[in-house]
């Protein structure tokens, strides 16, 4: 009897030891990545919040200023312009790139001739660097550039156009031109995401609907689109996070001031400006925190709108 108990105890002890060993191995495997995440991501998030309450110069804090920067931001016309530009940009570019990506994916998925070739060329604008492609875009959109040449070929009178064909140097059209550029470059990535998800849509639903006499249009709206819901969430959420961080194209086309007339000033470009041209690190941090709050709120809202299934990470 007592012998049995000790065997059982030994067995349990052994099991516990093994469990502890596995836990130790697990923790050591994730130790370096976790250390970096905790310091360089989560830690700096709190550091940024701390900084946003301080007058922070090159040498560090010059004293606590409370909510001063958060209040100041909403009376700062450059910041208001930046937040307006960033949100307007995101609100237009995300539906545009998503719709275009979905459209391209559905046609390629319908197995038209040359589907592989089309997939490769449509994704192509997504692979070049933003620096290269924006520079190329500025060249194409120049007043004498090929875009205006093509317009005038179709009968548009460039010289009498409201902006004289100066798409990027007119404050009325600069942001919309960048929207066009990024809808074009990002739709390739969105297309690939949708293509992958279309392949997971169960063909039997479509067949069953077809047998019941549903038209292709009905099948698309009533079956394919709802089944793609998780994909819509992912594409829109990641698209939104990306769009609110517009920086590269804005600084390349409009310089650090988002010229002309702050029409390309974005939240991120303003953070850059405050940090490295005005050395107002506390104010820059406050704007970073506002940006984070917006991104966080939008992600949560989108998650509610599309349900929880999208982030089912257990695959």
């Amino acid at each position, binding site marked *: 009897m007592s012998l049995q108990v000790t065997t059982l105890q030994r067995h349990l002890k052994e099991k516990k030891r093994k469990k502890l060993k596995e836990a130790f191995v697990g923790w050591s495997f994730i130790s370096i990545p976790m250390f970096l995440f905790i310091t360089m991501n989560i830690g700096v998030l709190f550091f940024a919040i701390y900084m946003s309450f301080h007058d922070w110069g090159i040498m560090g804090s010059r004293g606590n200023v409370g909510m001063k920067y958060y209040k100041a931001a909403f009376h700062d016309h450059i910041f208001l312009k930046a937040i307006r530009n960033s949100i307007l940009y995101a609100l237009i570019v995300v539906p545009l790139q998503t719709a275009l990506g979905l459209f391209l994916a559905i046609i390629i998925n319908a197995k038209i001739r040359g589907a592989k070739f089309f997939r490769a060329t449509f994704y192509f604008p997504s692979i070049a660097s933003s620096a290269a492609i924006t520079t190329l875009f500025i060249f194409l959109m120049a007043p004498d550039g090929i875009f205006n040449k093509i317009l005038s070929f179709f009968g548009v009178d460039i010289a009498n156009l409201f902006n004289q064909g100066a798409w990027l140097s007119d404050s009325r059209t600069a942001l919309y031109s960048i929207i066009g550029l990024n809808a074009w470059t990002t739709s390739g990535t969105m297309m690939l995401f949708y293509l992958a998800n279309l392949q997971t849509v169960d063909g039997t639903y479509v067949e069953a609907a077809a047998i019941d006499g549903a038209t292709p249009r009905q099948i698309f709206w009533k079956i394919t689109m709802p089944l793609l819901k998780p994909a819509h969430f992912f594409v829109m959420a990641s698209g939104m996070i990306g769009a609110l961080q517009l920086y590269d194209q804005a600084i390349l086309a409009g310089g650090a001031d988002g010229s002309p007339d702050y029409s390309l000033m974005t*939240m991120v470009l303003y953070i850059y400006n405050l940090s490295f041209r005005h050395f107002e690190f506390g104010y820059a941090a406050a704007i970073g925190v506002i940006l984070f709050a917006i991104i966080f709120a939008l992600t949560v809202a989108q998650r509610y709108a599309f349900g929880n299934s999208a982030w089912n990470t257990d695959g």
Partner: protein
Amino acid sequence: MVKISRKRTHIFFLLMAGYSLVSFFPFIWSLSTSFKKQDEVFNMNILPHHATAGAYTTVLSKIQPNFLSLFFNSLFIAVIVVILHITLAGLAGYAFARLRFPGRNALFYLVLGTMMIPDQLRLVPIYQILVKLHLITPHPLNYLGIFLVKAVSAADIFLMRQYFLTLPRELDDAAKIDGAGPLQTFLRVMLPNAKPVIATVGILTFQGTWNELFWPSIILQAPNHWTLPFGILQFKGQFSTDWPPIMALVVLSTLPILLIYIFCQRYIINLQLSSSVKG
């Protein structure tokens, strides 16, 4: 999938052909412009009347820091970041997928949650930290700042974890029976079986780092540390509207990525498949 009538197929085919022209033509145009002379830049001809490689000699010999320095800085930074991502995301992805330890799920969600922290919020405090660590310097230690910022990627850990989840349990068990420790199991059994996801993570990290403008433009101090995208930003101002050399720089900086795309396309498309969100 959705069946399309014959007449519609033709319309869609034409639409697609038109859009592929829109996707591709700008790059042809930049190539064409890079071989033109300045006075021919705004003519509509694709083939230059007087083709010249003058723009390329300008880019290769006249810009400071020179092109090769920009190129090798980009390459160096991209290769190190690829190695860091594969190693660290591999270890973490494997642990999150296969090893049992307290706090596993909470830590994994914490990692995913960091994806919502915008780089630009990190910028302000990280710059202060790098200054304190004396990494904002013309000394080569400057590169270390980039590596610290870019060493881990939540998306890559997610990808690696998803892949390791699909590998059969028997692999771990067999290794355990053969007396392999956890590190040996990871290095000898798991990694060799994870080649497709390693290729995908590697190629996408390379592409992303090679193309990146944001962090290099903030951290890299001395011109001899600059990368190609940062170089383009600088020279676009310097050359102003002297388009042939600017387009030559665009062509030369895109070429490596184009080659990778042509030869590794299936891995790039693979990513979208493996990371596709499941309902």
